[in-house]
């Protein structure tokens, strides 16, 4: 039994595999629930239910437990009405059910100010920024990457500069991007672009270089020349790995979103998060963070599924 679970580099059977996948989500949820619902586990604060004679306590005030105990002692000594309260978690850790509710209410809560957006509007603007930044980066970066991986000339010409540029932090270009591109979506797209583009060239050229050279030689002996080599051998040869790279790079693009959305006119999902944190609506914050996670995971699963459709030789290879 133990051997079956802990066999080195052997795949689990399908039932235990599904079980583990479910557990990987259930476990963190369990820990979170335990910390939220079992009072003696953590709960470092007291939520006041009855202020007694403590002047600054109100119903619902959150204070640290030591402070609360001190006040109880003070009141005892002064012979005044004692405050009462329940143990509670800090405001930044809402319980799972609160976040679950916020999942719904975050979408239905009207923006607090007129210039702020509804959650779905914020989300939509974020997705657009990601899409355009990633799309523009890809239509330029992928061809350059493939050329660099195929022809040494391009590799020598582009890669040294790209290597240098990719160390420059994309956020550092925020002010510049605003100065050049204005304050709306354009500079945000530019930040995503800068964050993705240079990595993309290097990743794609590396993937291209990993293509089995024997395939290129075989193609040459079959009469393939420059352009047909590129379009009939190199590109189809790397397309599945390229697709995987793109999925990973898309994940990286999301990490640049936070900076991108804080420049110019603030907008988007990360701005929503910042605002909600400012109002101490941490349930909304958690809900929004999770929405990003869910969007990311679903896109990735969707793309993986799509990949198996587009590349039939890949699908069978995985099961063979």
């Amino acid at each position: 039994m133990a051997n079956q679970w802990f066999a080195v580099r052997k795949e689990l059977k399908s039932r235990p595999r599904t079980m583990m996948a479910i557990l990987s989500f259930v476990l963190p949820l369990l820990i979170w629930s335990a910390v939220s619902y079992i009072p003696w586990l953590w709960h470092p604060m007291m939520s006041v239910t009855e202020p007694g004679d403590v002047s600054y306590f109100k119903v619902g005030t959150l204070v640290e437990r030591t402070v609360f105990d001190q006040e109880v002692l003070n009141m005892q000594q002064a012979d005044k009405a004692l405050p009462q309260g329940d143990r509670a978690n800090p405001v930044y850790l809402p319980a799972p059910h609160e976040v679950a509710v916020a999942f719904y209410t975050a979408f239905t809560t009207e923006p607090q100010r007129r210039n702020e957006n509804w959650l779905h509007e914020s989300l939509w603007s974020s997705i657009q920024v990601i899409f355009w930044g990633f799309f523009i980066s890809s239509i330029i970066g992928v061809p350059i990457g493939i050329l660099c991986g195929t022809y040494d000339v391009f590799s020598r010409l582009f890669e040294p500069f790209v290597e240098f540029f990719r160390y420059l932090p994309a956020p550092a270009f925020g002010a510049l991007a605003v100065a050049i591109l204005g304050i709306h979506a354009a500079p945000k797209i530019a930040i995503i672009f800068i964050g993705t583009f240079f990595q993309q060239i290097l990743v794609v050229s590396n993937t291209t270089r990993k293509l089995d050279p024997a395939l290129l030689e075989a193609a040459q002996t079959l009469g393939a020349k420059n352009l047909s080599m590129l379009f009939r051998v190199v590109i189809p040869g790397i397309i599945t790995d390229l697709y995987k790279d793109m999925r990973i790079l898309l994940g990286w693009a999301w990490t640049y979103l936070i900076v991108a959305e804080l420049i110019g006119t603030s907008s988007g999902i990360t701005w929503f998060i910042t605002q909600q944190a400012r109002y101490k609506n941490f349930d909304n914050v958690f809900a929004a963070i999770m929405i990003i996670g869910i969007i990311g995971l679903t896109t990735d699963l969707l793309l993986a599924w799509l990949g198996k459709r587009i590349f039939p030789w890949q699908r069978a290879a995985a099961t063979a």
Partner: protein
Amino acid sequence: MHHLELPSYLEQAPEVRDRFDRLKQRPVVLEVKDLNKTFDSRAGEVTALKNINFKTHKREFVCVIGPSGCGKSTLIRILAGLETPTSGQMLLDGKEVHGPGPDRGMVFQGYTLFPWLTVKKNVMFGLEMAGRGKLPAEEEALQWIDLVGLSKFANSYPHQLSGGMKQRVAIARALANQPRILLMDEPFGALDAQTRAKMQSYLLEIWKNIDITILFITHDLDEAIYLADRILVLKAHPGEVQELIEVPVPQPRNPDQLLSPEFLATKKRLEELIHPPEADEGLNEDHLNMVRMVSVDDEVESVF
């Protein structure tokens, strides 16, 4: 063990001699002249091939054999145009060739089928490169696939095939271009013994029926004798032609000949050339350092 009385490998039956005479009258397809190849390595210049000269006649089957490091792979890669010789010439039908081209088909040990193409599309690849239209290319490809007996798998992807089947597709793919010469670089080296034997008979069958000249690299002595009209024996460091052996085993070949006196005589000669008896035995020799490690009262005291 008693020694068999073997004839000399140079002794040829009249019909065999007659066949070689006629073979040498045929036009020369491939001629290699004073071919040299040196590599620059950290230890200095290394000569991989030195003064290689030979001629291959039309529809001849030549095997190239030699110990590891004799440069046989380098030779076939130069012939395929995948590497450039340091000096010397190679003439195909009397014309000098440079670089890879469809006139010299190549079959690699690692199959090198395009994994993203079906069997049919793999075979069509060369035809399309030659500018053949899609429909005629497809029609022709299917004929070649039929020839190697894989019609049922025309729409399969390479990973769905066994090693032997993959190599048959690779052969069909190379033949579809109708090259002047088919270069084969240890094509059956990765196959198991049974599959290899089967592939050898298939290859002879194809060679008999198609206008094709074959240059075949192997390190398997039996394979070389069984397949070849003539065997080019190379020696290592530097890679030089040691001997061009005319195989005295009559054609057409069949597996029963593997134990015929001519076959064994040729094999003995190849053994002598490729594994010469050690000059200084004991010195610099690679041997196990064995001591008895079985307890004296072990159940099985000795394996003899």
